[in-house]
């Protein structure tokens, strides 16, 4: 068995094993899942950086099961495996004893097998096969949450499914144009159909990453789906895979130039995602929903970074991807801890938990600061690189990014204040610190955020630059403190402004939750907020309305056709019959006249034509 | 072919019209007999003596007898009915002479058709030879016909049983 096949097969096998274990055995499932993930992490890290190829004949006609491990996808595999291990550890403990934990853990492992498969596969169709598999586990994991999670699961399934279909068309087009389906050998010009192919595949990639306009299932899933799911997939894996595929198509397959329409399109999508998502996050009253909107807005930074097509932008985008994966999952884990202890994630019911749950609070502070881009944490450095790239390509993108950071900072200040500071609510007086199994992953991830922040050469020089190859990043290193001091100054000013805004908000309303109400109630903005809250702009709802209208029109058309055939045609036949029967009025004179007249006509006709 | 034939033809047509327009059925039958007599003279003049004899005896004789017997079997209309009937009938039949006049006028104007290629067949044998040797099938047909006619008479005229029932 080839090493690559083991990497794919092992997690799936353990997942199936978990499924087959009888429900009575306590704890065996959790242990097995953690061991599975650990084995996966060890395996993946053993062959980091090697170049391995494997091609198996599969469906013929250019479609074969070909896998390729090289620097780029190996580092993403490691990131995914590490995070997966920690989150599985966390979810095993947090979901211990719950009914659906057996299914959930199995799904986690199976989806990891599929992620490995997708990342490793070199043939687009093979990648598509694993990519669609993930769609199923996504649906299953949401649906397993609670009873009415099924509706959100279908919503997610439809949105992601439709985008996958579009991606499939893109892949077919690209395959048709380039003649081959293996990613490493493909080279598709951006003219005409090639551009269309790129657009379709880009839609597939950013929809997997969860950026605008395909994001609307994530906030719903935040409420319905079990929390570890949010931490694992929307938090980490989906971002990794989406951005990995986006970089592969824009750098390897289509080789975009700096100023092509595609890159500007990506940048605008990125910028819009940053701004709109963070504005929505600002007004959320629920811990998990707020975090989910941030997950969407962070994707905007990555797409913007890669969209700039500048070396600094791309490296910044990828670095941001890793950082986001870390602090986003850790934030979700803190949310999980709060939910497990306080029983709710509504911010107005929480308050003053900082004393009760000091370690969770500490991890929250570290990851919140890094997501807001406060130096010395990792978020700051990757955002600076993205700012540098954005500035190079256009002021507007830089301002959008910076504005995004301002709102991110403001919303996390509100979240921290509302949840952990302020006076302790009477209900959760008996709240105590989360169990160690849940705390260890949080602490580890938080520490890794700090490490990646301070010593950021490690990720950039050792992992990202070799992955991209010299052609792209022009040989000079981006590690260390950002060169462009003006940018740093800008960021610091923005952060201070966010802090002042928070203090002003708190003073004005008296409680942490109201920190951003003054922004919320701005006349124009509040109208949009109400509409957005009720889901008017959600493409999924618009689609559903269109489908219902089409059904109505078609059924009425059908009724008209039925009426025509059952009434009009029958009436016509009967009346013709009646008329003809009336003609035969029984008098022989009539019949003789018919015959004579007809004979005269026949004679004339024949005389003329014969 | 000379004027006498034309005269005969005209006379025949007039007799025919009179028979059609005739008030009572008897007059119609007599008219028919007269037409038939003139026709047999014409046939005689056109070189078919046997056919003329047949026409005279059968058409003028037998058919007139059949008609008269049928008329007698059916209730003769009273004199008054005939007069009243005939007034109505004349209104209907008045158009006949007009139409005949029109047709005659059209035929005269049309003139003699040219370019008619006709086969001048050689005169083969006399009638009896033709009838008995070449047309035997027709003779056989006539025999069957007469049997059928007899059966028809038996079936249709059989009065007793029908009325009794």
């Amino acid at each position, binding site marked *: 068995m080839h090493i690559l096949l083991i990497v794919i097969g092992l997690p799936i096998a353990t997942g199936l094993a978990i499924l087959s274990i009888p429900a009575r055995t306590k704890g065996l499932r959790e242990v097995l899942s953690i061991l599975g993930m650990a084995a996966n992490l060890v395996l993946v890290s053993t062959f980091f950086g090697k170049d391995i190829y494997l091609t198996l004949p599969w469906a013929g006609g250019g479609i074969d099961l070909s896998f390729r491990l090289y620097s780029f996808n190996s580092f993403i595999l490691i990131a995914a495996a590490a995070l997966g291990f920690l989150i599985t550890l966390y979810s095993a403990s947090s979901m211990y004893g719950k009914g659906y934990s057996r299914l959930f853990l199995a799904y986690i492992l199976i989806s990891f097998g599929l992620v490995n498969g997708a990342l490793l596969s070199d043939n687009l169709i093979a990648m598509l096969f694993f990519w669609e598999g993930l769609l199923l586990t996504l649906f299953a994991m949401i649906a397993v949450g609670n009873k009415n999670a099924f509706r959100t699961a279908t919503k997610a399934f439809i949105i992601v499914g439709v985008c996958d279909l579009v991606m499939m068309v893109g892949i077919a087009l690209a395959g048709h144009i380039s003649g081959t389906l293996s990613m490493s050998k493909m080279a598709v010009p951006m003219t005409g159909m090639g551009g269309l192919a790129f657009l379709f595949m880009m839609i597939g990639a950013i929809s997997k990453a969860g950026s605008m306009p395909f994001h609307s299932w994530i906030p719903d899933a935040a409420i319905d789906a079990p929390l570890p799911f949010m931490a694992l997939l929307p938090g980490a894996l989906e971002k990794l895979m989406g951005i990995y595929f986006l970089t592969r198509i824009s750098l390897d397959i289509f080789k975009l130039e700096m100023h092509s329409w595609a890159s500007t399109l990506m940048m605008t999508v990125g910028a819009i995602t940053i701004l709109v998502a963070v504005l929505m996050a600002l007004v959320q009253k629920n811990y998990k929903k707020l975090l989910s909107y941030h997950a969407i807005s962070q994707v905007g930074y990555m797409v913007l970074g890669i969209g700039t097509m500048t070396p600094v932008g791309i490296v910044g985008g990828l670095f941001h991807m890793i950082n986001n994966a870390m602090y986003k999952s850790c934030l979700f884990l803190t949310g999980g801890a709060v939910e497990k202890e306080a029983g709710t994630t509504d911010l107005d019911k929480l308050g003053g938990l900082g004393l009760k749950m000091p370690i969770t609070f500490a991890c929250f502070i570290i990851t919140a600061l890094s997501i807001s881009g406060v130096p010395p944490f990792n978020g700051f450095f990757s955002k600076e690189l993205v700012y540098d790239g954005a500035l190079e390509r256009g002021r507007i993108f830089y301002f959008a990014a910076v504005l995004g950071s301002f709102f991110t900072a403001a919303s996390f200040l509100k979240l921290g204040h509302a949840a952990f500071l302020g006076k302790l609510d009477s209900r959760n007086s008996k709240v105590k610190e989360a169990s160690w199994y849940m705390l260890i992953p949080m602490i580890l991830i938080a520490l890794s955020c700090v490490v990646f922040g301070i010593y950021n050469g490690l990720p950039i020089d050792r992992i990202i630059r070799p992955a991209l190859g010299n052609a792209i990043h022009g040989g000079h290193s981006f590690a260390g403190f950002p060169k462009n001091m003006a940018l740093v100054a800008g960021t610091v000013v923005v952060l201070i402004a966010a802090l002042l805004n928070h203090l002003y908000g708190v003073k004005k309303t008296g409680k942490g939750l109201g920190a951003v109400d003054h922004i919320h109630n701005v006349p124009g903005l509040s109208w949009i907020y109400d509409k957005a809250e009720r889901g008017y702009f959600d493409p999924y709802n618009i689609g559903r309305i269109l489908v219902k209208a089409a059904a109505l029109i078609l059924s009425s058309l059908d009724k008209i056709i039925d009426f025509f055939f059952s009434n009009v045609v029958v009436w016509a036949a009967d009346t013709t019959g009646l008329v003809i029967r009336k003609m035969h009025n029984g008098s022989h004179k009539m019949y003789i006249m018919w015959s004579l007249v007809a004979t005269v006509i026949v004679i004339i006709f024949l005389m003329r034509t014969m | *072919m000379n004027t006498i034939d034309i005269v005969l*033809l005209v006379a*025949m*047509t007039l007799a025919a019209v009179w028979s059609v327009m005739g008030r009572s059925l008897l007059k119609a039958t007599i008219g028919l007999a007269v037409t038939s007599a003139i026709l047999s003279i014409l046939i005689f003049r056109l070189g078919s003596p046997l*056919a003329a004899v047949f026409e005279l005896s*059968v058409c003028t004789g037998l058919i007139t007898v059949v008609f008269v017997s049928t008329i007698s079997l059916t209730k003769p209309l009273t004199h008054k009915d005939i007069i009243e009937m005939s007034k109505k009938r004349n209104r209907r039949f008045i158009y006949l002479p007009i139409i005949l006049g029109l047709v005659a006028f059209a035929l005269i104007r049309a003139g003699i058709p040219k370019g008619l290629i*006709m086969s001048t067949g050689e*005169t083969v044998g006399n*009638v009896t030879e033709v009838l008995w040797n070449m047309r035997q099938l027709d003779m056989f047909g006539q025999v069957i016909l007469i049997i059928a*006619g007899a059966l028809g008479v038996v079936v249709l005229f059989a009065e007793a049983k029908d009325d009794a029932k």
Partner: protein
Amino acid sequence: MTPNNPSELLYVFGSFTILLLVAGFYCLVVTRSFLRAVIAIELLIKAVTLFFIAVGYITGKPALTQALVITVIVVEVVVVVIAGGIAISVFRKNDSLDITLLNKLKG
């Protein structure tokens, strides 16, 4: 009218046949009495016989046409007899020979 060629003869006899035919058909369509309809049929047959004999005379094969005419006459006698029979049966049923009553079968 001096002795004449075949097409002239055909024209004369043809037109008189047509006249007789018109008279016959008119009477057949217009008449109300059963027997007068039979007379009309007889008239039509007379026209045909005239035409037959004329054709025989014109094309010089009188023997053949005579044979045919004789057969026609025999056939027509039988037809007239049957028509008479039907007339009497109708009279017995309808008590009148008016054929406009014979229009029960319609639709």
